[in-house]
Each structure stands twice: as structure tokens, then as C-alpha cells.
């Protein structure tokens, strides 16, 4: 599996994501600077990492979403490459219009940094195929702007089309309908606020995030 991780100024989870991808796929991803205009040929998976790109100036993810490389990411997504946006990466994907909705300041104002329980709401996608429907997993969150918002029609459509991938099992940040992660229409782009790449081996305490990456490997091989 050929993968890439995009690096923005201010990203601080790009290496976490790269290590997780390397450990699970056996091949280190290519790290691609945001000023680049092209991705390596034949890329299967693009990771848009967490962190605080551009210091969250203007809106979280707003500046990064307009980086030159994001055109190449959108093109690759259009051709079916898997795109995984974690935390700030999720914010970047919504700002870039690759996913619907927006991520606003947490309803409780506070930065939330802890392990949270997630319910797996979709088990059909490349990202979620190795989880059981309704399964509860534990993955850490660390964000200030994770409050998922969209108009009621969009939320209904996301739920009706099975595009809510993960929900918070308890209150975390005020997200509409407890949405923690959503898929695009084709199911090859996932954005989520929790960090699956920080829960992939015994040293992390749990490995609940590992199956997300294993599922990606399986789906690319299939």
C-alpha cells in the first residue's frame, strides 16, 4: 500500500500518523510538504494529520485547506484514493469542501484532552470494515474545535446514507447528534476528531485504533 502524509506548518501529529501507517502497512508513508502541487503516483492512502496548522488562524484548518497540495488531495480523492483526516485533518477536509459541515469551538469552551468511548456507526467503509456494528471502542481526543455542526437536512442525509462513521458514546464537545467522524458520499474520505493513530499498540494502553488502519490495508488489497 502506497501512502502519504501531508505536512502543514503547525501540524504536530504528522509523525504519529506516519508511525501508525508504517507499523500497520509495513511501509513508511511519503511525507509531503503543503507547498507541493503533486502527490507521488499511484497513492492509495493520504493522511491529513492533526495539529494546529497555521496556529488555527482565521478558523481551524482554514488556511491549510487552501494550500497548493489540497488540490492534488481532492483530485486523488476523486479518483478513489482513501483520505483520512484526523482532528485538525478533519477540520481541513471540511474547510476544503471534501466533507460536509464544520467544526466549531467545543460547546463547553474547554480544550478536551482525554480518552473517549466511541460507538462504531458504520462498518461498511474501507476505514471501519474490521469493527463490529455498534461496537464501543476507546480512542483519545485532544481538541478545542471539535463541535461538529451542519444544517438539519445535511445531518439527516449523513445519517440516512450511513455516513456517520463514529459517534461519541457520551458528551464530549457538543457535536450535533454526537457525531465524531463522517464519510464522504463515495465512502473513501473519512474525517474524525479522535486520534486512532494514538491507540494502535500495547504501549498506548489499548489498540482500538489499529483496526482502522488494518481495514484500509485490506480494502486496498481487495
Amino acid at each position, binding site marked *: 500500500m502506497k501512502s502519504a502524509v501531508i505536512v502543514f506548518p503547525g501540524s504536530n501529529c504528522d509523525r504519529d500518523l506516519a508511525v501508525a501507517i508504517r507499523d500497520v502497512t509495513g511501509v513508511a508513508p511519503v511525507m509531503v510538504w503543503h507547498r507541493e502541487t503533486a502527490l507521488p503516483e499511484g497513492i492509495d492512502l493520504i493522511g491529513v494529520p492533526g495539529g494546529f496548522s497555521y496556529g488555527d488562524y482565521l478558523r481551524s484548518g482554514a488556511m491549510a485547506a487552501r494550500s497548493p497540495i489540497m488540490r492534488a488531495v481532492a483530485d486523488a480523492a476523486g479518483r478513489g484514493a482513501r483520505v483520512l483526516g484526523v482532528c485538525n485533518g478533519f477540520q481541513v477536509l471540511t474547510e476544503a469542501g471534501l466533507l460536509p459541515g464544520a467544526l466549531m469551538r467545543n460547546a463547553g469552551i474547554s480544550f478536551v484532552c482525554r480518552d473517549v468511548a466511541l460507538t462504531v456507526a458504520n462498518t461498511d467503509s474501507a476505514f471501519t470494515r474490521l469493527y463490529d456494528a455498534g461496537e464501543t471502542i476507546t480512542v483519545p481526543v485532544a481538541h478545542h474545535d471539535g463541535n461538529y*455542526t*451542519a444544517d438539519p437536512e445535511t445531518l439527516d442525509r449523513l445519517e440516512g446514507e450511513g455516513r456517520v462513521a463514529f459517534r461519541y458514546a457520551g458528551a464530549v464537545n457538543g457535536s450535533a447528534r454526537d457525531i465524531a467522524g463522517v464519510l464522504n458520499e463515495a465512502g473513501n474520505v473519512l474525517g474524525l476528531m479522535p486520534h486512532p493513530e494514538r491507540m494502535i499498540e500495547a504501549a498506548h494502553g489499548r489498540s482500538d485504533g489499529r483496526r482502522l488502519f488494518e481495514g484500509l490495508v485490506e480494502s486496498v488489497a481487495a
Partner: protein
Amino acid sequence: MKARVYVTLKNGVLDPQGKAIHHALEGLGFGGVADVRAGKMIELDLADSITDADLDAMCRALLANTVIENYRIERGA
């Protein structure tokens, strides 16, 4: 020529920052504040050739996220 762009959250979108400011005002003893909404103002110094349509395009492309925000443009002399 200067222009100011005011970006505000759409009606009905929860504004946690506005709420926190409201609570802080109440904590300071200021009564009679029914609600607080926080937004931002962006000041642009523009060439004379920039049209209203150009400014509007800037707002839609970057300055405001129209999923959650409204914007209002005020052009100066």
C-alpha cells in the same frame, strides 16, 4: 481604499465564546445583557481596481465559512 469584512455566526448556530463572554459580564455585575454573539472584523487595504464582486469572492473563498458564518462588507473611501 479600505474595506472591512464583518464575519458573524449564523442565527441558530451555538456561539460558546459569546456565551462565555456573557457569563463573564454577569460575573462582573453587569446586568441587562440578554445575549452576546462574538464575531470578527477583517480590515483589507485594497487597490482601487478591486470590485465588489472581487471582495465577495474573497469572502466566499476564505474569509467566511458559509456553512456556519454570515459576512457583511463595508467599503470605505
